[in-house]
Every structure is written in structure tokens, then in C-alpha cells.
């Protein structure tokens, strides 16, 4: 056999303009493919400066890790602290926490589906470019996104780094009228999300399946978002405190983001994982949309994550509406949390996957140690494997097409390495 023509593909992340994070793909003469996702996002050392801070500060400080999913950071941090202090937040306050988080899901998923990922399938450089020819999905996406942002503003004061959440709950209970005012927009959001799901069904999705190990939170009676047990699609089930015994982070030479494995294997967290593990708990219209999209079982095609995100958006809007409708005025939206010596972990489902926090605090509430494992770090190895498989399966694609689809393969997972890797540019060198 003549062997494969060796190729080298270099993908530069434009968010890191001069290729501070990128992708290096090499096709060897024997057909083997190597792919490295190189993250050069400058380290910001959160785990370092959290030490010595007061435990109540963690939600506001860690929110600053990511402007796209601050609520995820606030939720996981609050839960870890509550666990460390032996407090559980339930009932109406937990409802409000889910509502705020659904706001973030709607905002983030609408942004990704319509402005970041969707344009790929139609060959546009951006949602803004796409809007010239396809105004409808873009305008609908922005409208949907705004409802998510409005929920965040209602409970948190603003969309990015909201100020409403505290360890134990919320600083202030929302007013009944303000909650009621969300009813109409949410009804409309459900319709918009259903329309969005149908629209994603019209996109031309590449055929591509992978044999993923999925990791997500699972909850007995709800599609897990704010809490749950750890579960995988091969039967693993454990309390969140087992996380660090299975998920190990290593520092790969080519990356500033730590890479994770689950019992030594690459794994995937995020919409596909959640859907595989909890799809029977989706809201009625979300289930219906999933059926219409032909999502009848676990979905192993990462390019179809756009379908799952649209389905999850319907679920988020429906569940948010239910919370708004059953809301009754409360005096106090938090439980008291007194510090005690010990440690606690917390995990929640950020739009792009499981976000784990663990803190050790002293009797006075000072943070002694902090550990934060974001979803993108967990997904990184799977993303690299996607590329290896994709490139290996498509020797016929020319460099430009291959490059674009590789970018798309990364965007499938909505990575959030400080949310910088959404947009990549490809440079190809023949060996």
C-alpha cells in the first residue's frame, strides 16, 4: 500500500489572536492521526488566590472564572460551602436557584445554537453574517436569549456575574409581581425554543458516531441541573464526593488547561451526557421535540449536540415557567450557614457540562484549599479523540473543508476555556 499522504493541520484560535490556543493535527504516513488541543489561555490562578478568602466570598470570586456561565460557578461554590458546613438548601429557595440556573441555560444555549454553532452548518462566519440571509433564526435566537438574561436579571440583578446569590440561597426574595411578569415571556420562549429545535432539524448534520463514556449528574425526579449524583453510561453511580477518586487531572505539555480522565479513560460531559442519562426526565414538550428530531436513545453524534441543546432549552423554559407559576412570596430566601472546620464539594450542570468544586475551610470560615474542575477540562481529551476520528474518517476533504469541519467538531462541545475557543482559524502546512 502506498500509504497515506502525510498532512499537518494547524488550527489557531482567533480569540487568542496569534494562536495562543490552537489545534495541531498531524496525519502520519501510516494513516495514524494525532490531535492536540493546545490551550494557551493565560492561567488566572483562582485556586491559588481563593486560599485565605472567606468562604462566603467564593460565589462572587469564582463567578469571574467565566462570563458565560457565572451561575454555574456560583451554584457549585455555594453547594460545596453548604456541604462543608452541614447545611442543605431545599424547597422554595432551591426552586429559585434552579430558576436562575435555567436562565443561564436558556441564555447560553440560545447563544450557542443561533450565533455560535448554527452558522457553521450553513457556512456562515457568524450569526451576524447569517442574519443577512436568515434573519428569522437569528432574531428568534436573540429573543430567546433575552428571556434567559431577564431571568438572570430578575434573581441576580444582572446577566454577567449576578449579585443575587449567596451561600445558603439568595440575598433577597423576588417580588411576586416580578415573578408573574416572567410568565408571558416564558410562554413565548417555549414556543421560540420549539421553533428553534425544528430549525436545528433542518440543518445538514454530518454522519459521525463515537463510543463515548458519558459523565453527568443524575437526579431521581428531575433532569439534573443544580445537584444530583454522579453517573456514567456504563453503570457508575456515586455521591459527588467520589469525583476526585475517579476523575484525575493531568497537566499535558501542550496545554495550559488541565486534562481529565475518568478511571484512566477520556470521557464526555455536557448535553449529550445529560441526555443519555436523564432524557426520560425531560419536560413534555422537550421530549416531544426530541422525538421529532429522531433522538430516540443516547445520541453519540457530537454534531447533533445542537439538537440536544435546543431540546434542553425547551426543557429549561418549561421548568422555569413551572417554578414561576408555583411561586409564593417568601420572606427570606436563604438559610443561615455557619462555618465549621471541614471540607465539602459541590457539582452542578453548567450548560457545557459538569462543574465540580471542592473547598476545605477552617472553623472561622477561611478557605484553606480550593479545587475547581470545569467542564472543558473534562471534555478536552474527548474533543481531541473526536478530531482524530473525524480526520481519519475524512481523507477526501480538502484542507479548507477539513479545517472548517475540525473547528466545528470543537464547537460541538461549546468549550469554555475561559470561553475563548469558540472560533478557530485553520492554517494548513503540507509536511
Amino acid at each position, binding site marked *: 500500500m502506498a500509504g497515506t499522504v502525510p498532512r499537518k493541520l494547524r488550527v489557531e*484560535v*482567533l*480569540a487568542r*489572536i*496569534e494562536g495562543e490556543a490552537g489545534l495541531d493535527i498531524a496525519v502520519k504516513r501510516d494513516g495514524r492521526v494525532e490531535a492536540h488541543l493546545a490551550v494557551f*489561555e*493565560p*492561567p*488566572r*490562578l*483562582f*485556586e*491559588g*488566590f481563593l486560599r*485565605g*478568602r*472567606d468562604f462566603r*466570598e467564593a460565589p*462572587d*470570586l469564582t463567578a*469571574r472564572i*467565566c*462570563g*458565560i456561565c*457565572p451561575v454555574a460557578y456560583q451554584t457549585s461554590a455555594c453547594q460545596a460551602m453548604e456541604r462543608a458546613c452541614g447545611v442543605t438548601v431545599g424547597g422554595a429557595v432551591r426552586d429559585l436557584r434552579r430558576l436562575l440556573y435555567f436562565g443561564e441555560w436558556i441564555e447560553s444555549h440560545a*447563544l450557542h445554537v443561533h450565533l455560535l454553532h448554527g*452558522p457553521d452548518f450553513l457556512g456562515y*462566519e*457568524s*450569526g*451576524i*453574517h447569517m*442574519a443577512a440571509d436568515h434573519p428569522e433564526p*437569528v*432574531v428568534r435566537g*436573540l*429573543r430567546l*436569549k*433575552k428571556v434567559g*438574561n431577564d431571568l438572570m436579571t430578575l434573581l441576580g*440583578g*444582572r*446577566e*454577567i*456575574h449576578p*449579585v*443575587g446569590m*449567596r451561600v445558603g440561597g439568595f*440575598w*433577597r426574595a423576588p417580588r411576586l409581581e416580578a415573578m408573574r411578569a416572567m410568565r408571558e415571556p416564558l410562554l413565548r420562549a417555549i414556543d421560540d425554543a420549539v421553533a428553534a429545535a425544528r430549525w436545528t432539524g433542518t440543518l445538514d448534520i454530518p454522519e459521525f458516531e463515537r463510543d463515548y463514556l458519558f459523565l453527568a449528574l443524575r437526579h431521581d425526579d428531575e433532569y439534573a441541573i443544580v445537584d444530583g449524583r454522579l453517573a456514567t453510561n456504563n453503570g457508575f453511580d456515586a455521591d459527588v464526593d467520589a469525583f476526585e477518586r475517579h476523575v484525575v487531572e493531568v*497537566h499535558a505539555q501542550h496545554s*495550559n488547561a*488541565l486534562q481529565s480522565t475518568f478511571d484512566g479513560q477520556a470521557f464526555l460531559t455536557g448535553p449529550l451526557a445529560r441526555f443519555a442519562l436523564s432524557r426520560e426526565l425531560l419536560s413534555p414538550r422537550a421530549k416531544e421535540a426530541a422525538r421529532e428530531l429522531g433522538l430516540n436513545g443516547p445520541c453519540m453524534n457530537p454534531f447533533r449536540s445542537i439538537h440536544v441543546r435546543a431540546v434542553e432549552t425547551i426543557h429549561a423554559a418549561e421548568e422555569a415557567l413551572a417554578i414561576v407559576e408555583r411561586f409564593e412570596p417568601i420572606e427570606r430566601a436563604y438559610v443561615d450557614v455557619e462555618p465549621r472546620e471541614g471540607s465539602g464539594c459541590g457539582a452542578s450542570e453548567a450548560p457545557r457540562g459538569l462543574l465540580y468544586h471542592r473547598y476545605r475551610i477552617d472553623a472561622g470560615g477561611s478557605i484553606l484549599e480550593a479545587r475547581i474542575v470545569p467542564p472543558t477540562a473534562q471534555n478536552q481529551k474527548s474533543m481531541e479523540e473526536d478530531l482524530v476520528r473525524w480526520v481519519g474518517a475524512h481523507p477526501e476533504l480538502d484542507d479548507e473543508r477539513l479545517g472548517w469541519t475540525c*473547528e466545528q467538531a470543537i464547537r460541538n462541545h461549546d468549550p469554555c476555556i*475561559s*470561553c*475563548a475557543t*469558540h*472560533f*478557530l482559524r485553520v492554517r494548513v502546512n503540507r509536511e
Partner: protein
Amino acid sequence: MAPRKPKPKPKRAGDGETPGDVRPKLAVWKFASCDGCQLTLLDCEDALLEIAAKVEIANFPEASRAIVRGPYDVSLVEGSITTSHDAERIHTIRRASKVLVAIGACATSGGIQALRNFAEVGGWMTAVYGRPDAIPTLRASTPISDHVKVDFELHGCPISKEQLIRVLGAILRGNVPRLPHHSVCLDCKRNGTVCVTVAEGQPCLGPVTRCGCGALCPSHGRGCYGCFGPLAEANFGGMGRLLEVKGVDAAGRARLFRGIYGAAEAFRVESESHGRNRT
């Protein structure tokens, strides 16, 4: 900081996106940050397509794959300088930009990652990565203005949408942007918000923090933690003494000033007068 006069007037807005596009070119650049400030632009849902029609989005990786070569009429710069590579990159961006606006706490003060400036970075690298030598990083996180001339600074963590639209509008019209310049505390009075310090004895940095958020935290029943940065000419020493009277211990006072805007001169100095450097 007083606004500096922007450089020459951008070209008149036009329509269409031909190669000879005459709309002013807008570029968005990222350094060490959380992307929140540039996301603020995408969060202007109602105005986004309108803005996009008035300017040519020439470089905005968070939103578009398309890249148009400089020079750029307006560059929005997010994030702080934390690597030697970035310290060089900002000069290239400055050269390619007529007006350069630093957006957010990261770009204007070093941001939350400037908490490293108070500590031994090597130890933190070990805490995060296991090996201190693994990642190239500078000892301090510094604002953009430490490296190049900045035409305008927009504060906040994150910046305010309204302020961003206002500032962009002014620059595109060739005007010097002007923003209100008073404390968060004053906005509380205007909003009729009950003072959390007076009513509940909670510590609040509102009296010494720059306005822009609409006095958000007090309206949620909590004290301000200074995420719009120190207001020039405020009485920081007086603020420190008030916190002491309200029973905040020295470490607590030091921490309060040493937060999102901890490396901003006024907060840094005040924080150091209450507590020793941590390691």
C-alpha cells in the same frame, strides 16, 4: 480616570459589506479575562443587529469567524496582561488601532487575577498545576494602560451595557465619551434604597466605589464589594475607619479592598494599610 480625547474621526457609516466597506471597523481583543465584558456586547440583544449594521465587525472572535485586517477605527480591549507574549501583542494592537478602549476591571486594573500581585505566584502555580515552572506567566497582572496609551477606560466587572453603547456611540460620532462620575452610594440615595450599612450594619464599599451598576448590591440587600473600582477623590481612609467602627476586623477590611479591583491604586493602598501581604 478622565476620558482622553479620541483620535481622528472614523469614516461615515455606510451599508453593505463590499470590500470597499466604509463603515468604521470595530475590533474586540481578549487578554487574561473571563470573556464577560465582550459578552456584554452580545448581551445587547435589542441593539446588537443595529450596532452590527453601523460598524464593520472586523475582529470579534467570540462572535465571528471572519477577520478583517486592520487598521481598526475602534478597538475594545478586554483582559489584563499576564504573559510576556501578551505584553508584546498589545503593542501590535495599539499600532493597528485609532481609538483604543480598555473595557472592564481586568483591562483597567489587572482584574481579579491581579490578586497574584500580592502573593508569591510560584506557590500558586504549584497549587494549580503541580509544577511552578510549567506555565509561562508574569509575576504581576497589569492593566492595559501600563503597556500602551489607552484612549478611554470603561470600568466594571462586568462593564455596563448602557455605558458600553453610550461610549461606542460617542466614539463613532467622533465625540469624547462622557460618563457620570459619582459614587454607588449616591445612586442608592437616588433609588431610595435603604442603606444596608445604616439599617443592618453591613460593610459596604458604595461610598468609595465608582457608579455604573445602578447601585445593584444594596438593592439586593447586600453591601457593595467594589466591582466598578475605586472612585477617584473618595475618602478611602475614612471608609477604612468606618468599617473598623462597624466591627470588621483588620483581615476583613484588607480583603474587602482586595477584591475584584484589588490592584487599583486606591484600593491597593487602603488594603495594605489594614493587612499584611498574604503569601
